[in-house]
């Protein structure tokens, strides 16, 4: 028991909240390929959690194991105190919205939504089923289409029917596999907010799978980043953004400048930066002397100064790391601009500079010589 509690305590989870869904060391092997490796995760009731990762990293497989459509090779899944290992898919209190929606083509919209209700035991009365189908279609604003065939609906409408179908049984856990991937970009934006609002209103615990960081950050309260079958980091979007724990999550959530080098005398050397990079002591345990390390630097932490005023400005802002650079590209985005800068060694950096930064002076143009600098505490040191 003690060992179990220990393992449970290690599991990443929202602080202070009881775990509603507990995934413990779950892995899945197909032949000799591990599609999911040793994933441990807890999710609180009513939470909206996003599994984020590039295509083929095992997100769907993990979701399908929770739904019971795949059997885990290792580990166990506990939902609301019940170990799901021996519960077949059709008796699990979970419902999934499939990536392709998988609506039944031989049933009407109402028939699709009613399908799951007909399977409930004890049986529901016909009137009760009709009422619930009605309520569900109302919820997703598809009541007018109740008698249509799914093939006659647009992608967005099919998505809403699929959602209604998966919510109709009032699952303890709603699983969404790339819910918006089949929609075009314009409706996707709007639907993200609608979907989140709807899930909140229903109050269902939800795991959402996506390869789109924006979708994950918009919709989820916490994100788990997956890479090659493993869960590499779990946290709130801003937490992961500010404190990535590895190069993969640093690069996956937002944009970043990554410098690779080795630790020597408390600095990062060998990175393609003109001088050893000063590291802040506050940024966690320093890796061992001589070991490989990476520094992640968000574009908005990089400051850009005109060469003339560079030294005073750098001194005033307390930036330890400085280098001359040439402006290669500028993307003006209104409130801020993205500067693509070329360092003396040839490597490029990106900086996000607020438009107000330049005051009355003209901003540097393409080809201008500038100085880039950043304060040591703004960089995040990564050991993998």
């Amino acid at each position, binding site marked *: 028991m003690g060992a179990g509690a220990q393992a449970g305590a290690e599991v990443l989870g929202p602080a202070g909240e009881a775990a509603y869904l507990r995934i413990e060391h779950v892995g899945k092997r197909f032949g000799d390929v591990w599609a999911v490796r040793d994933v441990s995760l807890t999710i609180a009731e009513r939470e909206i959690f996003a599994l984020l990762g590039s295509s083929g990293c095992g997100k769907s497989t993990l979701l399908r194991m929770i739904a019971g459509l795949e059997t885990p090779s290792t580990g166990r899944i506990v939902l609301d105190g019940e170990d799901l290992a021996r519960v077949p898919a059709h008796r699990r209190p979970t*419902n999934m919205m499939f990536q392709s929606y998988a609506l039944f083509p031989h049933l009407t919209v109402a028939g699709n939504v009613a399908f799951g209700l007909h399977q409930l035991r004890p049986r529901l009365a016909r009137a009760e089923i009709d009422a619930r189908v009605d309520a569900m279609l109302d919820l997703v604003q598809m009541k007018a289409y109740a008698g249509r065939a799914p093939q006659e609906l647009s992608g967005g409408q099919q998505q809403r029917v699929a959602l209604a179908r998966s919510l109709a049984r009032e699952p303890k856990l709603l699983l969404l596999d790339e819910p918006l991937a089949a929609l075009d970009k314009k409706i996707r934006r709007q639907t993200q907010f609608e979907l989140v609002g709807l899930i909140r209103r229903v109050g269902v615990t939800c795991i959402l799978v996506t390869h789109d960081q924006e979708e994950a950050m918009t919709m989820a309260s916490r994100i788990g980043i997956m890479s090659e079958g493993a869960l590499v980091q779990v946290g709130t979007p801003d937490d992961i953004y500010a404190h990535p724990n590895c190069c993969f999550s640093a690069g996956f959530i937002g944009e970043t400048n990554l410098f690779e080098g080795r630790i020597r005398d408390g600095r990062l050397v060998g990175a393609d930066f003109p001088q050893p990079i000063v590291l802040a002591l506050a940024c966690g345990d320093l890796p061992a002397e001589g070991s490989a390390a990476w520094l992640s630097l968000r574009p908005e932490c990089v400051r850009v100064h005109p060469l003339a005023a560079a030294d005073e400005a750098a001194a005033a802002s307390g930036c330890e790391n400085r280098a001359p650079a040439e402006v290669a590209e500028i993307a003006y985005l209104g409130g801020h601009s993205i500067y693509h800068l070329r360092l003396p060694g040839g490597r490029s950096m990106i900086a996000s500079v607020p438009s107000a930064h330049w005051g009355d002076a003209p901003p540097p143009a393409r080809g201008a010589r500038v100085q880039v600098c950043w304060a040591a505490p703004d960089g995040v040191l990564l050991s993998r």
Partner: protein
Amino acid sequence: MKAPATPAAARPDAASGPGSGSGRLWVGLLPWLWMLSFFVLPFALIVNVSLSTPELAVPPYVSPFAGESGAPAFHPDPSAYRRLGDELLARGAAGAERQYLAAFANSLLLASLATLCCLLIGYPFAYHIARARASARNTLLMLVMLPFWTSFLLRVYAWMGLLDSSEVGLINQLLLALGVVAEPLPLLYNGGAVLVGMVYSYLPFMVLPLYANLVKLDLRLLEAARDLGARPSIAFLRVTLPLSRRGIVAGSMLVFIPAVGEFVIPDLLGGGGVLTIGRRIWDDFGPNQDWPMAAAVAVLMVLMLIAPIMLLHRHGRAREDGP
């Protein structure tokens, strides 16, 4: 709207397309010519014979077109139909020895049972082939069709060898040797033997269209059904079965239609005991020399088969268009 691609809808663009030469015209015409030469004309001839008057001559009838002096005339003689009607309605007890009613009832019953058995046996066949590894499917399909590699007649004779109640009947010999029965069972020359022969012979015609349908089934729909609380058996009944309706209809027609008119299997495995439509037509064209009657029976059979096909077709179309 997703209008089904009917030939009627497809033809205009085929004809008006920029590359529409005489080649296309011929390809479009060929099926119609074929149907005209090998179905419409022969059927018209049969209808003509059915409206003739029997006569002791060669051929044994007088065509309704046979005028007195070569002037065009048409004098149909519906007597064959009248006699057939009397037989079927069991009027005119004198004609009852020909047992047309029994022939129609037997043929329809045997064909229905054969279709049902083929469906019950063929569905699992088709289902498992469709679910097999893609690399194994062709081999399995080949195995289903393997019996076609030997002569149909040979296979029916082989069944006679299996079912016979004399010492050459393999099944009876086996049962006797095992002591299951004391006397040989009368397995051959009855309706059961005919049914076995039909099911055996027509099974591939059920399996192939069912397979073609089931292999296209989107397995994610079954996962969705399971996820929505359907046990595997319910998922089968509520999703797989309705979605394979077209395959079931196609396979059933391919078995039922030839089975209704089947002559060889009832003749060889049923002996004289199993009267069928095929047998009646044979007897009336042959020994009885009553060609108009034989033709009338054939015409009635075709009409009987066409009506349900049209109904099914219309039903299928309605389902496709509507929700």
